[in-house]
């Protein structure tokens, strides 16, 4: 085979692989929208469920999911970014830090139901938070930590060493260097990790199943010690536990869940683009 033909073949293979990856996503989104869009009304997204969730809307689940995403990020972002800073900027390369890194990578591969049981054991029972938004958000944040730490470390180590040298040579302390030079330049990369994980926090079912989710709770939560509904568990409930619910309602719920994740990602990506434009080297 001559070089030109193998070049064309490679191109075709790579393109095919990309299409195979993207196509199912488009098909899924297409099916969800086609079947669900009919049930989306203002009432559906602005009122609580009625008649054993067969009528009314899904507002408590939407609010619950937002609470859980925000709560998870409140814990996971500072913890994750600070430990990434420690691992990348302060800790040396020794056996202990290598073990920590290995542990973090392995943690990313733990099935989400295990996080759910961990949250049940630690936050719900041991710390006596009960089944609550607090316990659920903390469980989700533990699940989010590995990716946030790994992405943040990657972003920090991509900041050119020369920036650190200049800053120190101008008499900045190590923390001033991190605060004023390293972090601002690593922020777009750190945000990438956070974007991925906000979506996961909103979409995961297993970690919140035992720690926060209420089967049906047609009120909005009042405090972090309340239970709440959430979109993924609500979807799971109406798809498997409650008979006689229209297919369109289930698809509409899925559509709202997708929309919530996409909207959050959209705003994060806009923020990241703004930050990137300001800082390039």
């Amino acid at each position, binding site marked *: 085979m001559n070089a030109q033909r193998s070049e064309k073949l490679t191109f075709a293979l790579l393109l095919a692989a990309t299409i195979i990856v993207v196509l199912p996503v488009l098909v899924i989104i297409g099916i969800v929208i086609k079947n669900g869009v009919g049930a989306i009304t203002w009432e559906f997204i602005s009122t609580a469920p009625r008649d054993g969730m067969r009528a009314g809307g899904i507002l408590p689940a939407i609010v619950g999911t937002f609470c859980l995403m925000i709560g998870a990020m409140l814990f996971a972002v500072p913890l994750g970014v600070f430990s990434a800073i420690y691992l990348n900027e302060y800790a040396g390369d020794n056996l202990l830090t290598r073990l920590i890194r290995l542990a973090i990578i392995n943690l990313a591969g733990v099935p989400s139901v295990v996080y759910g049981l961990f949250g049940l054991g630690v936050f719900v029972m041991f710390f006596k938070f009960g089944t609550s938004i607090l316990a659920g958000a903390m469980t989700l944040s533990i699940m989010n930590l590995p990716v946030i730490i790994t992405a943040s470390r990657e972003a920090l180590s991509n900041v050119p060493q020369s920036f650190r*040298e200049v800053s120190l*040579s*101008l008499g*900045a302390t190590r923390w001033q260097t991190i605060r004023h030079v390293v972090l601002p330049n690593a922020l777009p990369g750190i945000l990438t990790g956070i974007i991925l994980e906000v979506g996961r926090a909103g979409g995961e079912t297993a970690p919140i199943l035992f720690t926060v989710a209420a089967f049906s709770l047609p009120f909005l939560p009042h405090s972090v010690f309340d239970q709440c509904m959430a979109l993924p568990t609500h979807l799971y409930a109406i798809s498997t536990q409650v008979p006689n619910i229209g297919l369109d309602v289930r698809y509409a719920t899925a559509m709202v869940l997708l929309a919530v994740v996409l909207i959050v990602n959209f705003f994060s990506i806009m923020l990241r683009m703004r930050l990137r434009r300001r*800082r*390039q*080297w």
Partner: protein
Amino acid sequence: MDQPIVQTRGLNLYYGDFQALKDINLSIKPRQITALIGPSGCGKSTLLRAINRMNDLIAGVRVEGEVFIGGENIYAPDMDIVAMRKRVGMVFQRPNPFPLSIKENITFGPIIHNTLKQEGLDNLLERTLQAVMLWDTLKDRLNQSALSLSLEQRQRLCIARLLAVMPDVLLMDEPCSALDPAATQRIEELLHELKAQYTIIIVTHNMQQAARVSAECGFMLLGELVEFSETGQMFTNPTDQRTEDYISGRYG
């Protein structure tokens, strides 16, 4: 004669088992340019970085001996390294402005050190950019990115950023090696202007540059300071055979 502002006594430096500096004894006079020359790997950059403890950043570095800045041993255990680095600034081989605006690059040091209010933003910008002869070209576009500048302008901006923290000593690590000959000449002219106020130590692999800009000159080889003398004398009448071999181009 002036007291030396930078002085090393019995300075040894090791990267792990490798000894990069061997018993360096050096006296640098204030407000003149001192050059360090020698072939690649001779330890001249290492010596320069030992003078503001930038070698601390590298793992496995061990230092013995003393380095005095204005009479203070900077390797003393109770030394405030951060305050010392403010007095002894560094210009690097590759111009490395922060990916910020021209203005933000200059205000970086004063903001860190909380001295911006004292001097005032406008004074600071004009003083530093005047000193590196960029004021007339850049005064109307201070908010532009520093990365929109040419290499030469970037290096001048880096010098201005350093002057903003009012150091006494400027360490320059081959500051012209990324620049073309015309830009190099203009930076050398700038160095002549700056020596009226600052003590400059410049590392260069370019012997002609050392001969042009420096008053005193040190020749280093394999971690040793072979010869240190007045520049004219070193280039016309070196005392050590190895110096003569190097400057006559027999190796390096």
